[in-house]
């Protein structure tokens, strides 16, 4: 927090760097060919939020610990706060805004909403994308497999339990199975 420019000479150099032409990339974003220009030092997270106005992806910790910035790059979940925007050139990036199919929510989005797995909702975009990645790889994950897959995402509201239940419910739906939340998940034990 207190590192940085010490004198005006350093500052002049830094200002010159900042005044350089923005870098321009082309990549596939949420299924669409996209071009964007931005200061080259920016992370993918900053580019998404600030230069592309996609504020669904969140920041939480500035150092890759909390998972709120998770997006899918070429199908793989990565922390966008630890990836340079420049590295998205030519890649396939998916954010929370691209998870729904037009007006139809992804089953995970439906179940997260229906089960109360989203309380404050700040961590939800990150969880949803990582869960989507899990279900692509494993259509019938066990509870421990879900816990491990989601262990890089922090939530301070839910205690995670409704999140697991929402993932299990969505997985069942995606397998074409009828499933409801067990009664004790909604009403507690008798």
């Amino acid at each position: 927090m207190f590192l940085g420019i010490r004198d005006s000479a350093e500052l002049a150099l830094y200002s010159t760097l900042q005044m350089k032409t923005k870098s321009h990339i082309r990549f596939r974003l949420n299924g669409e060919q996209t071009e964007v220009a931005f200061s080259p030092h920016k992370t993918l997270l900053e580019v998404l939020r600030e230069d592309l106005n996609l504020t669904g992806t969140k920041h939480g910790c500035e150092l890759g610990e909390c998972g709120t910035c998770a997006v899918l790059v070429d199908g793989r979940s990565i922390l966008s706060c630890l990836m340079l925007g420049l590295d998205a050139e030519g890649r396939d990036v998916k954010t929370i805004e691209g998870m729904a199919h037009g007006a139809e929510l992804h089953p995970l989005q439906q179940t997260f909403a229906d089960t109360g797995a989203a309380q404050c909702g700040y961590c939800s975009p990150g969880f949803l994308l990582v869960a989507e990645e899990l279900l692509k790889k494993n259509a019938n994950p066990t509870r421990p497999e879900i816990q491990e897959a989601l262990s890089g995402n922090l939530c301070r509201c839910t205690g995670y339990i409704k999140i697991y239940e929402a993932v299990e419910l969505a997985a069942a739906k995606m397998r074409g199975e009828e499933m409801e939340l067990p009664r004790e998940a909604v009403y507690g034990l008798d």
Partner: protein
Amino acid sequence: MSGKRNKSTPLNVVGKPFRKVDARAKCVGQTKFADDIVLPRMLYCKMLRSHLPHALIKNIDLSKALAVPGVFAIITGKDLPKSYGILPVSQDEHALCIDKVRFIGDPVAAVAAIDEDVAFDAMNLIEIEYEPLNTISSIDEAILIDEPRIHDYGDSGNIHKKVSLEFGTVEDGFAEADLIREDVFFYEGNTHLPMEQHAAVAHYDSDNKITLWSSTQTPHYVHRALAKVLEMPASHIRVIATPNGGGFGGKSDPFNHEVAVCKLAMITGRPVKVTLTREEVFYCHRGRHPVLMKFKTGVKKDGAITGMHFQSFLDGGAYGSYGVASTFYTGALQTVTYDVPRYKFEGLRAFTNKPPCGPKRGHGTPQPRYGLEVHLDKIAEQLNLDPVEIRRNHLVAPNTVTANYLRIGSMGLGKCIDKVAEGSDWKNKFSGWNGNSRKLPLGKGIGIACSSYICGAGLPIYWNNMPQSGVQLRLDRQGGVCVMCGSTDIGQGSDSILAYIVAEVLGIDPFDIRVVTADTDLTPVDLGSYSSRVTLMTGNAAIQAAERARELLSMAVAEKLGVPIENIGLAERRVFDVENPELGVSFAEAVVLAESKYGTIGTVGSYTPPRSPGKYKGAGVGPSPAYSYSAAVAEVDVDPDTGIVVVERIWIAHDIGKSINPMLVMGQVEGSVYMGLGEILMEEMAYRTNRNVVHKFPSMLEYKSPTTMEMCDVKTYLIEDPDPNGPFGAKEVGQGPLLPVPPAVANAVYNAVGVRIDEVPITPEKVMKALREKARGRDGRFGPGAVPAVDWPEPLRVLTPAEGGDGKELPKVAVHS
């Protein structure tokens, strides 16, 4: 009364697991949190914070910083000379420090620039000359060291507040006791760690009016503070609380950064945004006070308490915040679970040069609850009583008033204890206090604890005679309903509660309703999301507003249908004759009829908590319209070779009164258990033990909170015993279930490996130290020794209700005041 619902009317919305009204928006990334707001030509603010824990500000030179291209304005303390603070008795904060800094992280200047990078660079070119002062880094130091004073107000020296209250004569209680036990405990401070960092955007429009969007739990209190500090009429200031990405009490103070962006917007004429880094959130803090506690309790052989003397010592950090209330809270709720006929409370809050402490989930009650529940277990061991029995046999009765004048209504703790004892198979796992006949293998342990929490503070932060909560309804002639209320949704679902309750009373669907909240220009005042007040208070206000609307609709439709008003029912978007349901109109038609008859349809409802029977000084903290109760059994696995504690399972029973939405209630229980787990196992706001008082863990990398891999299994029981003061009987659930978890785990650790960790968090290092001590034949305990010697004032003495007291303090016979 016309069209009134009664207890036997079946419920269509309340009690059902509807999704929240904002759930889908959160799952598609549409919800606009404060940092998601972007306005044209917006500037970015960075706050320069002190790197010294205690120092005088001798000089500030902004010249180099102002010369940076892209910097539009820089403000310092002299630009905002008015002080503020959440409590009227401790208005000790300035948006930017004027003459001294009091902790590392204390803001001294604010820069508005074209982007954050420029603001950051400019911030580092601000030159400040400090004159360091000696630091106060602990409660002990604050008690011993009077100079330098961190603040020039307070009890004396660096003691912020001292409280001394006695209900009945506690010595009489000790005289009656078969056993008197003393224990000392320490509960380390921890912080809220909401996933969303604080952020705010200020806009100064061409009419010279300010709008502030902020991630705050208390827009009304922020509104009041801004009017004071900006020296502007409140009618020209609009505060909008954006959906909070978690609050837990960390976003309940008016903040330096909120004031700063408003001022910068006024100076520059451009919108200004500030977003705190995670490190800055640690410095902002307002989290759980570290509390040192001493219990001295007299009991009969059967475990009945005859008297209790409790002392608490709070490390308040550098500012008042809610601290005076926190101090009283540490002493307030000991009497609401087990009967305590005589009670003495002494509490002290110290100023130290650390980030200020304030309210965190449970606000001053988790610490003493932890102490009480472990203390009670130790008493049970001495008396050779089962920990479940000692609690179950001495519960406070419903509809009684405690020794300290807290009025208990519904009290479902007995049922809670029964459920978790049965569910956990306590009888077959707890094998008594004799270590030789274990039912669980060594290393596995089981422990129980109980707790209670308020459903809203009985009094507002600033004393007034107005309602604590207001709801306004507008009915549209095409069937839509708009509910407006000042409440703030911090993820708990308070917006949805309004929709569910109004939908229930008006017989429509929750998704027909538009909920508008937390906007000081548009919504009636609700004091904010703190003290678990929102469901109870806004719920009751919403019922009143909706019933008034229902009455208008019923009268208009009854007239149209030619049936008595008593026959009118509202359900499934229709208003009809209950004896002949085919005879009726749609909800929209009912509104048309009512609007034709009465004019534009709008109703209000409000809620004020009942007056407390306590009339003594300090009686304002503790009273509540209702109390929730929780019981938890923890099953743990302690590795005696590493000291690592794994909590396998928590059985938790919560006396909710009535679930407005059981699925959301489950979410609050599970989330509260999670947060209690984090506190007992790993969370700590610790500082280096040298004079520099530097925070050890101001990042998410180092400050540990549980991931999916650490979260235990949770078995939940919801006990529904409706409270007459709650909306549809509902009590709180956002904070209560956290409280029994830390002590249940501590008691389970003792059961597992025979050592007492009388300190929170229970870390492997502490367990190993205690195990080594035990192996050497010494006391297998890790925890604080004695409490500091303090010159306590003569207690304010109050006769208990049982003694025929009237709630007022006895006249002092003292010679001087």
